């Protein structure tokens, strides 16, 4: 094992970020049905938790998760999400970084916690529905998505839902992390891959 943060780590970051992004993208496509949009912070991390846990088990150095979160932010921005996504991604990435570091990148329990904190970046995708963005964002949606859709969305998303979503992210992340840990134990540890 290399001592320093090296090229090997960057390649691991690339491959796993790709996998993570694809899973996120598939789940996000569900988000078009209004009720799924609200539940996405819960459903997303559950599915994402599985590849994420494998990724965490490969992490040995500080900084890899931050890089992942920055790349996700860039890709999300390119695919048309508003700029606050950068703040959310980087903050979530850094928190996770420190959580994993606390366990010296080996503790499975802290990996599960990390899976929960990392999924907080999803809030960056939905922030536009809430607070000061809310009025202007929905106004801009009326022409794009039609009044019916906007009304449905609005009825699902009063401000307090945002705080529920934080909770949903964390709970979803925990469930996903536990599932991931189970899958790792069942398939990967036996095969000697981690």
């Amino acid at each position: 094992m290399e001592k320093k943060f090296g090229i090997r780590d960057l390649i691991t970051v690339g491959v796993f970020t790709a996998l993570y992004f694809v899973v996120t993208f598939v789940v996000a496509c569900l988000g078009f049905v209004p009720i799924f949009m609200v539940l996405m912070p819960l459903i997303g991390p559950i599915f994402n938790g599985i590849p994420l846990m494998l990724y965490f088990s490969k992490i040995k150095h500080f900084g890899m998760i931050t890089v992942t979160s920055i790349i996700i932010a860039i890709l999300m921005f390119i695919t048309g999400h508003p700029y606050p996504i950068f703040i959310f991604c980087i903050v979530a990435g850094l928190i996770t970084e420190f959580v994993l570091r606390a366990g010296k990148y080996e503790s499975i329990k802290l990996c599960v916690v990390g899976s929960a904190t990392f999924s907080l970046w999803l809030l960056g995708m939905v922030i536009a529905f809430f607070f000061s963005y809310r009025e202007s964002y929905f106004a801009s949606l009326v022409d794009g998505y039609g009044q019916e859709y906007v009304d449905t969305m609005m009825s699902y998303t009063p401000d307090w839902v945002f705080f529920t979503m934080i909770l949903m992210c964390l709970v979803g992340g925990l469930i996903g992390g536990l599932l991931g840990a189970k899958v790792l134990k069942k398939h990967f540890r036996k095969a000697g891959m981690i």
Partner: protein
Amino acid sequence: MEMGLKPSTAKGVFRLDPRTKLALLITVGIIMMSGKYTGVEYTLRLICICVPFILLLSVRLYKSAVIAAVLLLATVLCEGFIIPKTSGLVNLLIMIVCGVISRFGPGYLCGWYVVRSTSVSEFVTAMERMHFPNVITIPMSVMFRYFPTLKEEYASIHDAMKMREIGQSIKNPFTHVEYILVPIMMSTVQIANDLSAASLTKGLGTGRKRTHICNIGLTPVDVGLIVIMTGMLALFFIF
């Protein structure tokens, strides 16, 4: 650092600089993702759906280009003329179907084009010219390299499952996800190892300045396109 990506296929037709491709991707992504169905923005959307068509033609994916064009045109016209006339549940249904296709489709197609037409070497060089740090450039180039592989892996897994009649009926979604995700994750680990070995062999880890023989640079076509894209984005944000 040619890590198995298709070498540039856009011979003769027209060859764009990776930076131009990025500009196209961002513009199409933003306009299609959050554009409205009326006025100036609708016109911009109509222009935007032509972009993937032309791009796919230029890499000789004729069939996909035609299918994409017909589908996208149909959904966008649907958005412009049918949605305002309907209401209630029908409206919501059409909205969702059209929305998924027209919002994600063009961005996905442009992304596909970028992956098809850019060699890893070209991509890394372009990123270097834009002064992106290596920490971001290398993972991103690995991702570009990995997306097509992921698609192939998924197709193989799908075939294997079909052959053994697994997952025909989805009883337990989690088992289903597990059947698909676990093999993909296994191969992901394998690919990560292979790529690291390959890149070490190619001397990526030495920390010296990278050399390259690929020929990238902004031609008048590139400059023109970037100006047009910037103009479109400006129009988009003003209205």
